[in-house]
C-alpha cells in the first residue's frame, strides 16, 4: 500500500508536468478559453472572440503538487512490507 501511494504521487506529479508542458507551459493562471482577434477590414477594429481552450497554469501545477504531497504523506501511515516481515 505504501509503495502504491508513493507511485501514485509520482504519477500525479508527472502527469501534471507533462500536461502543463504539452499545453504550452503557461506561467500564469489556468485559463479555460483563449481570446482570438479578428480584424474588421472596413473599420480597422480588432474584434475579440473567445474559443474554449484549456491552458493549465501554475495553480494547476500547485494543486497537483499538493495532491501528490497528500498521497505521499498518506503513505507514511503504512509500514514497509519488509519491516513487517523482519519483526515477524
Amino acid at each position, binding site marked *: 500500500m505504501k509503495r502504491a501511494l508513493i507511485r501514485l504521487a509520482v504519477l500525479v506529479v508527472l502527469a501534471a508536468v507533462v500536461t502543463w508542458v504539452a499545453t504550452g507551459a503557461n506561467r500564469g*493562471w489556468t485559463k479555460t478559453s483563449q481570446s482570438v482577434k479578428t480584424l474588421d477590414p472596413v473599420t480597422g477594429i480588432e474584434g*475579440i472572440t473567445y474559443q474554449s481552450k484549456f491552458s493549465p497554469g501554475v495553480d494547476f501545477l500547485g494543486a497537483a503538487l499538493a495532491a501528490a504531497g497528500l498521497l505521499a504523506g498518506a503513505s507514511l501511515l503504512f509500514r514497509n512490507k519488509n519491516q513487517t516481515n523482519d519483526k515477524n
Partner: protein
Amino acid sequence: MKLNHLLLLTSLSISAYAAPQSFDFKDPKGVNNAIFKLDAPLESINGSASGITGTVSFDPENPAATTGKIVVASESLTVPNPMQKEHLHGANWLEVAKYPEITFEAKSLANVKTDGNVTTADATGTFTLHGVSKELTVPIKLTYLKDKLSARVPNLKGDLLVVRANFTINREDFNIQKGQYEDKVSPTIDLSLAIAGASIAQ
C-alpha cells in the same frame, strides 16, 4: 414673397444637410469591444467586454459638437480564467446583477483637431461604473467613414463612425474594493475602447 419662400427652403435644406447624424453603436458584426487590463503580480488580468450599445450624435461639418452615450453591459465582461470572471462579476467587485451597466456620456469636446475624416479631441463627460458617477476627460479619436455602411452590412446604405479611446481609471474612485488587495490587483485599470456605429441613410 416667393423670394422669402426660396430663402427659407434653401436654409432648411442647408440645415438638413448639416444636421448632426445619429450613429447607433449596436453592432451586428460583433466586433465592437472594450478591453480592460489590471496589473497583478503573476500576470496582468486582461479581459474584454462585447455587450456595447449607445448612440453618438456626430456632425461631419462640426465634429466639435459631438455628444453621445456608450453603454457596456457589465455581464459581458470576460476574462479567460473562470474563477477570476466569477470574482469580477461577484458581490465583492463589479456586482453586475446590481449594476448591470457601465456608461460614458460625452457632453462636450475640447482640443478638437480634424484632419480629413479623422478627428481627435478630449471628451468630457460622466463615467458611471459600479453605481458611482464621475466626471472624466478622455482622449478620443473619431473616424468618419462616409458611405461605408454597405461595405460592412450589405443592403444597408449609410455612414460609419469609428470611436477609439484609451484611458485609465482608478477602481477605488468607483468603490471597487477600496484600499483592498492593492498588492494583488492594481488599483488602476487601463481601458481601451474600439467601436463602430452606423447611421443609416434615410
